[in-house]
């Protein structure tokens, strides 16, 4: 009971932050920053406490609260932690204080509104993860749009209006279709079983006709695919990332994009298992396209932020691949990849923000030899780069390797059943690893090494204690997931199994058209 209350406290702490920022004094920005940071830190501490109390052996909902909210429609305020969301909630809470600390000097305009918006998006993101009721989920899902719209639009770069409107219009289009599908889903649950409910647990057993499943899956999948984003629905992402302030990029890359993959895992696939099994190959194709195409685009960018933005598309392709493989290892890998990308991309965007604050340029050609000018900066940058590539001992390796391994295991089964398409896809996906190393290392080489040059090079100062603190926290987390992945993975294992069971993983291969089995 007390634990359940604690989860509510974690969820509503950002609301307290919004109230505080409304009442605070704009003329004392440091007070606003400090209190916001303290609140975020408290939130992370409580979340970490919940995380360690999370029982890996319990497949059900933990720390759950259920209150009737709109009884006429079967909507309830139902939140709780399970294997699906526990790591992502921890990630979100972990990035909270980092976002506030990372914007300490960068944000000087409308400081109160900025922190209010950071709190609001924190509230919406945590709510989306912990919601176990579709209506509640949608509420938080849409609520994320508003603070992000303002974060990019007010504190962004030159083309911020274009970028932010594009972001909202893209994501809202997916949401509208998801809303239609959601209404239809709940209504058909009522007609088939007589139960009026929005709870995920009830909806999993809706027992829809395959024809209806296809449409509903398409609507949900489109909405999630825009958020991930999967090529060709990705074009909002580079603009949003480039124009967003550092905090916006960190939130976007760190958590917001995971909403898409989490949505696929929690809702898209398990709600419509028949349609999802039919679509696994298609999802894999798009996953592989995202991996390779994202990597190729990252290779040719001249804007530092764009390189990392496109690398996000590529990295989340692995998560999609792992989810679509329906293999236990692959699913676990997908979850690890989500968390790992949340850490590395957030770190890299923070570091780009730090150099931008000093040099006011995002053009890669302006830089070179930073290793000599900013040695501490360069060490951290290199560590995060290697983690993003997936060097063993870092979190990136755990995620990418497991996701690919799972894909190969499924592909091999398919191969034995006489289907080679998956094996080819898995093979192409591996080239993405090479490409990933190529563009990141080439980027690091041009950025950190070679001839020394940077705009305003004479005034450059290395990282401050605040910046080092932020990066140390991130690097520790990266190595924790890389060296001891066992602990977090045990907590997600039962959820991965449940996901596999709901979608019918054993039949993933069987869903392929029958052919002569191979010897």
């Amino acid at each position, binding site marked *: 009971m007390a634990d359940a209350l604690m989860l509510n406290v974690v969820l509503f702490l950002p609301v307290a932050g919004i109230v505080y920022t409304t009442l605070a004094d704009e003329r004392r920005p440091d007070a606003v920053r400090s209190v916001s940071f303290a609140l975020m830190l408290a939130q992370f501490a409580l979340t970490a406490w919940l995380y360690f109390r999370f029982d890996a052996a319990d497949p059900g909902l933990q720390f759950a609260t259920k209150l*009737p909210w709109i*009884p006429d*429609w079967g909507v309830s305020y139902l939140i709780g932690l399970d294997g699906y969301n526990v790591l992502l909630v921890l990630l979100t809470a972990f990035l909270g204080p980092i976002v506030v600390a990372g914007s300490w000097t960068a944000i000087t305009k409308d400081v109160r509104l900025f922190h209010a918006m950071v709190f609001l998006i924190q509230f919406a993101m945590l709510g989306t993860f912990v919601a176990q009721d579709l209506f509640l989920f949608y509420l938080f899902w849409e609520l994320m749009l*508003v603070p992000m719209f*303002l974060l990019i639009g007010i504190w962004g770069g030159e083309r911020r209006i274009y970028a932010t409107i594009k972001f909202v219009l893209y994501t809202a289009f997916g949401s509208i*279709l998801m809303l*239609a599908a959601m209404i239809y889903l709940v209504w058909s649950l009522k007609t088939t079983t007589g139960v009026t409910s929005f709870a995920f647990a009830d909806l999993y057993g809706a027992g829809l006709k395959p024809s209806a499943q296809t449409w509903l899956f398409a609507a949900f999948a489109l909405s999630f695919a825009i958020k991930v984003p999967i090529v060709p629905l990705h074009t909002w992402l580079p603009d949003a990332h480039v124009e967003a302030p550092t905090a916006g990029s960190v939130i976007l890359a760190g958590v917001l994009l995971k909403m898409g993959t989490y949505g696929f895992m929690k809702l898209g696939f398990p709600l419509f298992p028949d349609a999802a099994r039919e679509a696994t190959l298609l999802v894999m194709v798009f996953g592989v396209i995202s991996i390779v195409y994202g990597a190729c685009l990252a290779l040719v960018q001249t804007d530092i932020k764009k390189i990392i933005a496109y690398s996000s598309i590529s990295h989340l392709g692995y998560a999609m691949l792992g989810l679509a493989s329906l293999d236990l290892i692959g699913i676990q890998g997908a979850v690890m990849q989500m968390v790992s990308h949340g850490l590395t991309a957030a770190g890299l965007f923070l570091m780009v923000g730090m150099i931008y604050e000093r040099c006011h340029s995002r053009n890669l050609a302006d830089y070179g030899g930073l290793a000599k000018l900013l040695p501490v900066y360069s060490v951290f940058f290199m560590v995060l780069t290697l983690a993003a590539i997936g060097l063993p001992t870092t979190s990136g390796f755990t995620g990418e390797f497991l996701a690919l391994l799972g894909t190969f295991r499924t592909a091999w089964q398919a191969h034995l059943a006489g289907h080679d398409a998956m094996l080819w896809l898995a093979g192409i996906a591996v080239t993405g690893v090479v490409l990933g190393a190529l563009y990141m290392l080439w980027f690091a080489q041009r950025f950190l090494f070679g001839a020394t040059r940077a705009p305003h090079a004479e005034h450059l100062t290395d990282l401050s204690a605040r910046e080092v603190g932020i990066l140390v926290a991130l690097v520790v987390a990266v190595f924790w997931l890389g060296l001891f992945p066992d602990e977090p993975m045990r907590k997600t294992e039962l959820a991965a199994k449940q996901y596999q069971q709901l979608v019918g993983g054993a039949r993933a291969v069987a869903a392929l058209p029958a052919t002569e089995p191979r010897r």
Partner: protein
Amino acid sequence: MNVQTIVVSMLPEHLLLGGLCLVLVLDIAGRPARTSFALALATVIAATVAAAVLATSGYAAATFLGHLSVSPATSAGKAIVLLLAVPVLMLSRDEFRDAQFPLLVLASLYGACLVISADSFLTLLLGLETLSLPVYVLVLLAMQREDSPEAALKYLVLGGAATGMLLMGASLLFGWSGTLATETFARALDAPSALARAGVGLVLCAFFLKAAVFPFHAWAPDAYQGGSVPATAYMATIVKATVLLAVVRLFGSAQLTVAMTALVAVPPLVSIVWGNVTAMRQPSFRRMIAYSSIAHAGFLFFALLGAAEGRFQAIAFYLAAYGLMSLVAFAALPRDGEDVVDDRIDSLKGLFQRRPYAAVTLAIAMLSLAGIPPLPGFVAKFLVFRNVMAAGHTELAVLGLVGSYLGLYFYLRVIQYMFMSAPAEGAGRATLRRHAFAASLVCLVPVALLTVFPGWVLGMLRG
């Protein structure tokens, strides 16, 4: 029909009438306008409370058999309409220094209450005219604008056309059924007779015109822009709410036939799309709100496609959410310079820097009108589309939702101007208008209720 029933069941109307007479007397006696204003406000609040008490106590009576009856649903409808009138009156205080505005509003509200309770076309017509005539004057009252007379005339002529159509439709229905009772409308919906169909069509068109539904919408932008802010607010919220409540009562428990589905679905659907698309390009805030209200009228009529039991609940909730949020928006509008200048969307630029409270409330209103959760506008839209889909019109619901998506852009544009643009040259740091501030607070309390406890409110409106 005894005296006690008449006194109790029409208590809100009596209070309005009493207040109206008192305000008139006070005005003639030369008392300051402040007294009249306070009295009118007290009257409307008392009438709201009376209607709310009647609604919650489940009081039902046929006051004048066959002409006027009261049920919990009608009382709830009256309570919503009267509640919306409270902030409108407060808004007017900033603009009108004499007793004209409160007088006209009280008279018009009396008509609104008649319309909501009407059981016969006679009462309905009487109520509609009592509702509309003061509004023509309200639009004219803003004579500082050059286009006010033109707007008022347009509104008058088209209002007359609506009355004509309603009369014609009612007489056709009378010819078909031999009675003036409004329930013939519901019976005529699935009648095979051409007379009945023509009657239904004309009556429906009259209401489309009154509520500004495509293709009868063209008067709205001019009238909204021509009127001053409180007059526009009155038209956008109270007139629209009354008309919709009358329509939902007319439809009663009738199920729609296929042919009727087309008539009820297509104009509102086009309204949604047309209103939202046209609103994108409006340079005037009030014109934009007019097109947005055309789209919202579309959503409201869309609710008629749902099953009969849920219609009142959906429309009443939608009206409350839409009305309150529009009023919050009107209260937040800057009124520093000339009315014509302030009406430009450009004048909102950098509003957050100048008046943070106004900017934040206006942003909340825009997001709610756009249907972004968790604001009440979302629950209202959700309710409408849920009912439409449950009635089996999946394709129509999807089209309507996509239409609502189109509206997102221009609502966001307002927020963009307020938060992301620098203030225009010479825009001062305006002082907050006391009455507008109070009006927005009065709206935000029920808005908070609708946001946090929508389930409770929906339970109250179950009808």
